[in-house]
């Protein structure tokens, strides 16, 4: 065989991934299982078209988030996007119902979402940014407060329990806390914003660099990162002197109000026995700008990126025409499957689809793998 061999098989587009029988069955089973847990908790499944107008998706968020969206122009000349997530579509669908008098909406979904990326498809399913992935999630619109936050985190934990996933860890934070905390320390809003961006990227070195320079120039305490990372609403209240100081400024009061929400949530989680596998890390900042309250991510060994992500977005619905508090989260199905099967889930496609030419010879091995897996529920 030589490399300039005439191409006999049709190409698979960049970033797309074929899913073979065993895998497809498992993914569908996972989706069904999650949807069943959601339904038992009062969340009904909805669905909608794959395309959204770009201005729908941009409501209530920074235009920089649009960088990795897959855009095209429809027949009428308007720009449409292959949805990168479900939350805006759900908000679009829910707003007219809320305006007509519905008090509360609890919806679930299992849909494919799309992004622009150069990562290889199979690895990005496990750990990176995938061009196509499956999100199975819920959105709960119409309820505010710590009990609702805890309910959603409990639902996420119940679903993980139903899947019998080991070793997962939930990390929680508050979208408004870090920026307000920084400003309350006398850091200008623009600088606080770029520091928050450092946190969203996980660039702690960059954060310390900016703070070091700032501290030398203005005398601001340069240990805010350490302060921020040691705060734990499950363990202790904010130090008294800090509370007094924060009460005196507008940004400080914002920080205090976010902190109180965190403390309330921590108390509810503890009371309901949900706190064991939750850790708070206030340096955790999500890269989605529509979040206004509690945010959380779930990690599991074997998947190099979060298997579930969520948070509260109380100001998004008003951008769609009706004010309403809301919270939601979604599982990343392929990452979850990778963690559940210790990577086994990816193998069938690796073996059957590695090169179209190699398919026939390797099917024997694929069968062995398939039968060996019967013992595990996945």
């Amino acid at each position, binding site marked *: 065989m030589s490399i300039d061999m005439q191409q006999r098989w049709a190409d698979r587009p960049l970033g797309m991934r074929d899913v073979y029988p065993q895998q497809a069955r498992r993914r569908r089973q996972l989706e069904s299982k999650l949807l069943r847990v959601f339904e038992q908790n009062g969340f009904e499944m909805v669905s909608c078209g794959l395309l959204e107008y770009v201005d729908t998706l941009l409501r209530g968020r920074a235009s920089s988030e649009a960088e990795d969206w897959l855009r095209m122009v429809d027949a009428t000349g308007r720009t449409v996007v292959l949805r990168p997530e479900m939350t805006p579509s759900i908000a679009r669908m829910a707003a007219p119902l809320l305006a007509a008098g519905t008090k509360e909406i609890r919806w679930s979904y299992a849909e494919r979402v799309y992004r622009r990326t150069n990562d290889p498809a199979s690895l990005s399913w496990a*750990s990176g940014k995938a061009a196509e992935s499956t999100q199975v999630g819920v959105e709960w619109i119409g309820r505010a407060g710590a009990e609702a936050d805890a309910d959603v985190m409990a639902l996420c934990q119940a679903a993980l329990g139903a899947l019998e996933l080991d*070793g997962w860890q939930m990390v929680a934070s508050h979208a408004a806390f870090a920026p307000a905390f920084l400003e309350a320390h006398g850091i200008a809003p623009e600088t606080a914003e770029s520091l928050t961006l450092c946190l969203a990227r996980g660039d702690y070195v960059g954060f310390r660099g900016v703070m070091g320079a700032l501290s030398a120039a203005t005398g601001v305490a340069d240990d805010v990162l350490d302060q921020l990372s040691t705060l734990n609403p499950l363990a202790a209240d904010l130090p008294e002197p800090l509370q007094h100081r924060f009460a005196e400024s507008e940004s400080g009061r914002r920080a205090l109000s976010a902190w109180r929400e965190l403390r309330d949530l921590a108390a509810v989680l503890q009371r309901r026995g949900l706190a064991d596998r939750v850790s708070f890390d206030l340096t955790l900042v999500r890269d989605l700008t529509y979040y206004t309250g509690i945010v959380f991510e779930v990690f599991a060994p074997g998947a*190099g990126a979060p298997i579930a992500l969520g948070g509260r977005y109380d100001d998004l619905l008003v951008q769609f025409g009706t004010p309403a508090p809301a919270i939601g989260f979604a599982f990343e199905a392929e990452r979850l499957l990778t963690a559940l099967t210790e990577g086994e889930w990816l193998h069938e496609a690796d073996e059957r689809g590695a090169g179209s030419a190699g398919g026939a010879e390797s099917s024997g091995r694929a069968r062995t793998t398939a039968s060996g897996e019967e013992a595990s529920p996945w």
Partner: protein
Amino acid sequence: MVTIALAKGRTADDVVPMWRRAGLPAPADLDDSRALVFEVEAPVHGPLRFLLAKPADVPTYVSFGVADIGVVGKDVLLESGREVYELLDLQAARCQLCVAGRPEERDRRPRRVATKYPRLADQYFRSLGVAAETIPLSGSIELAAVIGLADRIFDLVQTGATLAANGLVVFDEVLDVSARLIANRSSYRTKRQAIQWVTDQLAQALTREAVES
């Protein structure tokens, strides 16, 4: 077990001794072995597994989670654009990312730039409002300027000796580069204690050495 991807070459040469000074277990025979994977026992947190990788591959290993943490230069990290946590500036393997060229080119508009960092070079020249073409090369970048393939090079400068030997001068210093400790986002959460232990040991050693000097 914690898996560590180490950038081969200068970064590993500088960081492994620092790793030992920080009281962290490190493989003994890294220098004269041809092996790429080393495992050493560590107290409390289980064994540490070291992978010796090409620098440009370290962010890839870490972002896909096959390595939990990694040590790599800031230049490589920026060029890769990968999503990883950047935990610590190890202040080792220092150098600078520079724009250089033949002296007579200094006042002329940049047209073609040879570099190992096409992403960063493109970003840099665009931020200056200059539409220069980038020519991706994989080594001996100076050569491109010497023989006239490019009128600028965008490359790491350590001592400046190679530039001088080839009659090139630095036009602009773009970025101070040093080795960074990076972590996979999921490992940072699921193996938090072990990773925090490594980070703290290294940070303490850095503080100690800064005080001593």
